[in-house]
């Protein structure tokens, strides 16, 4: 399998994408706020077995356009659809983390015919509670100590990934254009967003699953009333992971990836 990093030109772009594998119904991976496509470093290769896996840098992040428009995450859904057009992908499984999970939900509402399934990893926009102060601080980091503290807070236990993550977060905050882009998103999507209403799961025609770390302090696991209702063949759409915080796809990468692979294969069957 050949890893391909591409810069895709399209209206509203460019978008930076990382692809691996070929064939099958591709899987599209959407990262969280202040992250980038490399958040999927432990998952991408395993998800690319028998299908194409595509991770994308969202607007204002990584090497994609820094133009975030209104800053409303919901407005990124048409951007993702245009990216799918540019990539020639009529139908994809979508896996989204945190803000990317909320964007996945928005894409599923905006263009349901393009989404074969939804896997939401610690998604925003499902439960009523999230640590808005945490998100507000991410683009405005004052120094390494604060960056390290915020990086540590993403994990349930001390992580060897925290050092590198803190360095990346601090560099991002020190870049005025990136900082402005992230602050626009914070204002439009987190501070001024108003109350999070329950998701109308019945309106989504595709299979949906949620994956969450039990020790998530940024977006805690919501009450059952906020989750997709049980079905006869699927008592719960929620998978919980012990010893995992807000990055279960890193901290519990093995079981999370296995569940994603099985779910995508079952949806294809």
């Amino acid at each position, binding site marked *: 399998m050949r*890893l391909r990093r591409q810069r895709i030109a399209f209206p509203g772009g460019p978008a930076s994408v*990382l692809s691996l594998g070929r064939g099958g119904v591709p899987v599209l991976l959407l990262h969280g706020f202040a992250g980038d496509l490399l958040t999927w470093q*432990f998952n991408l290769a395993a998800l690319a077995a028998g299908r194409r896996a595509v991770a994308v840098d969202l607007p204002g992040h990584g090497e994609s356009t820094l133009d975030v428009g209104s800053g409303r995450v919901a407005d990124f859904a048409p951007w993702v659809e245009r990216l799918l057009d540019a990539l020639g992908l009529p139908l994809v499984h979508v896996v989204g983390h945190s803000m990317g999970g909320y964007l996945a939900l928005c894409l599923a509402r905006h263009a349901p015919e393009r989404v074969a399934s939804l896997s939401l990893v610690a998604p925003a926009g499902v439960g009523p509670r999230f640590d808005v102060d945490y998100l507000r601080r991410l683009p405005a980091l004052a120094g390494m100590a604060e960056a390290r503290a915020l990086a540590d807070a993403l994990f349930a236990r001390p992580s060897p990934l925290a050092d590198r993550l803190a360095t990346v977060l601090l560099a991002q905050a020190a870049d005025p254009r990136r900082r402005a882009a992230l602050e626009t998103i914070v204002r439009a999507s987190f501070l001024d967003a108003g109350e999070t209403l329950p998701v109308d799961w019945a309106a989504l025609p595709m299979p949906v699953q949620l994956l969450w770390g039990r020790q998530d302090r940024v977006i805690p696991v919501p009450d059952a009333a906020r989750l997709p209702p049980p079905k006869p063949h699927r008592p719960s759409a929620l998978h919980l992971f012990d010893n995992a915080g807000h990055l279960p796809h890193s901290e519990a990468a093995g079981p999370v990836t296995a569940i994603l692979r099985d779910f995508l294969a079952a949806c294809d069957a």
Partner: protein
Amino acid sequence: MDRKDFLLALDEMLELSPGTLTGDEALGALEGWDSLAVISFIALVDEKLNKVVEGEKLAKAKTVADLLDLAGVAVPA
């Protein structure tokens, strides 16, 4: 795939001259060992050895020998 072949595959993946890696190298000292290399390593093990490397274990790897161990390639005592 034996240890020697796997080390050669890692050399190629990290764009090093064949025979560069011996197993003792610290990953932090290898310029090419980054997140993209992590993805390529997982893909390499999946493709050549039909084994899925668990990312949470890979995150703790410190040396090339740790990578061999994760891949299930025999490491001499």
